[in-house]
């Protein structure tokens, strides 16, 4: 009885114990075979005939997928020392079958070779990779320092000020709203969370001291740096990464222009200029957040201002300010470095952007810790 499914039909005739005849008709393309492939191949494998005859008289259309099916049957029969013949195929389809079968008997692939790396080898490889990357970073820092010094020798001539202004606008001015919002909420949340337990001891007036000290010394510069790592570091990496993929960086090299001088210096300088300004705004927004909570607890604003002025010294403010320069340098430099290190392909650009943010965040936290120790030792 003919089996009907989609646009292709088949009929099975077991003419003898070891002889199977398969009558196919209709369209044999990737669509119709999609439903029947497993069924038909399964049937052939199950009956396991010595002689398989495929009668293709009824085939009205056959493409590469159809030919693939015939070749699969032939291959299977061959592995079982059996015979497979395709009869009555229309000449135009026979030509197609001949074209492909002349290319080879089988199209089965060796499985993809998997790199078998043993534990110790893996460790060694990782160590080499890390040292290699460290070497790159040190070399990059050196190159950056040299070009920065050169730039400062004659800032008007050696620096591309138009580019610097553009970077400041995109990464400073346009980042201001988010920096203000995050730091305002930071101050607000911290003041609110601290006020509840402190109130039980009648110490809620010291919320102002807590907020102002932590915002100015740590949170203002830190939050600004984190926002910039996400916003600017990734943008630099993606921008330079795309340039690398498009061979623009190679073009600079071969024109005799150093990519670090041309692309990195202006970005690093711009971020060093903009980040302290952003940090200043961040500090103010944080203090304002604290003030809102303070006011809602029924204290007059003058009390908050006096508490803040009493609590902080100029060193607290300057300490945060100095840190922000270092943060800015690290974020911009690591973003540019990852961009320049981009390999080929679209996914490489994504990896560079991710790596720029991750490295940026790690560097920020490590620097924060280092500064905490230094300030403690110096008594700042």
């Amino acid at each position: 009885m003919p089996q009907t499914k989609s646009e292709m039909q088949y009929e099975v005739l077991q003419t003898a114990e070891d002889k199977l005849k398969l009558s196919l008709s209709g369209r044999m393309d990737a669509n119709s075979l999609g439903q029947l492939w497993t069924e038909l191949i399964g049937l052939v494998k199950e009956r396991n005939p010595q002689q398989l005859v495929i009668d293709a008289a009824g085939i009205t259309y056959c493409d590469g997928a159809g030919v693939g099916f015939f070749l699969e049957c032939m291959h299977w029969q061959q592995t079982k020392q059996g015979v497979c013949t395709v009869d009555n195929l229309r000449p135009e389809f026979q030509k197609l079958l001949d074209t492909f079968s002349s290319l080879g008997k089988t199209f089965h692939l060796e499985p993809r070779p998997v790199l078998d790396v043993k534990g110790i080898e893996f460790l060694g490889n990782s160590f080499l990779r890390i040292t290699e990357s460290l070497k790159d970073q040190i070399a990059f820092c050196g190159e950056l320092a040299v070009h920065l010094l050169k730039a400062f020798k004659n800032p008007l001539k050696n620096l591309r000020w138009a580019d610097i202004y553009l970077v400041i606008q995109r990464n400073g001015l346009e980042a201001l709203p988010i920096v203000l919002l995050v730091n305002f909420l930071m101050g607000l949340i911290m003041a609110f969370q601290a006020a509840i337990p402190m109130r039980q001891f009648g110490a809620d007036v010291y919320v102002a001291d807590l907020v102002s000290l932590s915002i100015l010394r740590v949170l203002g510069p830190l939050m600004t740096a984190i926002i910039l790592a996400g916003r600017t570091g990734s943008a630099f990496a993606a921008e330079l990464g795309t340039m690398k993929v498009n061979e623009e960086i190679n073009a600079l090299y071969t024109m005799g222009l150093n990519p670090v001088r041309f692309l990195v210096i202006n970005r690093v300088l711009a971020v060093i200029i903009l980040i302290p300004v952003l940090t200043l705004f961040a500090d103010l927004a944080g203090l304002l957040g604290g003030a809102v909570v303070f006011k809602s607890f029924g204290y007059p604003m003058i009390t908050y201002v006096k508490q803040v002025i009493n609590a902080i010294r100029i060193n607290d403010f300057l300490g945060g300010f100095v840190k922000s320069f270092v943060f800015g340098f690290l974020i911009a430099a690591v973003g540019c470095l990852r961009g320049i290190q981009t390999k080929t392909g679209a996914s490489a650009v994504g990896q560079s952007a991710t790596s720029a943010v991750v490295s940026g965040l790690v560097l920020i936290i490590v620097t924060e810790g280092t500064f905490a120790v230094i300030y403690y030792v110096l008594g700042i």
Partner: protein
Amino acid sequence: MSCENESIINVRDLTAGYGEVIILDKISFDVYKGEIFVILGGSGCGKSTLLKHLIGLYKIQSGEILIDGKNIAQAQGEELTAIFNRIGVMYQSGALFGSMTLLENIMLPLEEFTQLPREAREMIAAMKLKLVNLQGFEHFMPSEISGGMQKRAAIARAMALDPKIVFLDEPSAGLDPITSAELDQLILHLAQNLGITFVVVTHELDSIFTIADRVIFLDKKTKGIIAEGDPKELKEKSKIEFVREFFNRVGVNGGKPVQ
């Protein structure tokens, strides 16, 4: 090779351009089944624009384009997908997906548009790679093979779903003469043995004379077709001087150095 009179692409009064700028003004032509059809013209005459309109990447301003009887300009959703499944496109750069191996690149359309089991998809993809002489490179990433190989792999990917028409955008751009000639032979082989219709944009004169059954010649000034026919005949007999110069590779001042 070509079955005359049975057309597979019909372009009628096609006007195309970008915004206010019109690049092609009311052009009409047919492409016949099984032929290798080449779009020619000087730089900036709209060859690539025409190709991108033919494959439905850009919206046409007026006129119609019928691909195998279906109007690609008005098709949407599933109808458009059905047309796309019947055509294959090789982009100038190859445009292979860099994150996938060659085999995976070719298996992708089979995976998305058919219900074939994995081993069948793998086998068909391997067949197509063998057809373009890339056996042994199935598990390579596009970045690990040469430019010529990338183009061949891109042709294999364009043929994954056994399309009736394959569009090639400058197949020999950036290839050495030998690789370029090999690619021409491959295109001829595919057209003759698989009955695929090819629409090719190219500048390479050698390629044109080897593969083209018919060419159209676009012109920047008139924004239309100034010549159509067999390139060998056009080279000798075209009434238009520019066309003869193009085929005979005559430059400014008759190709002689300017005094």
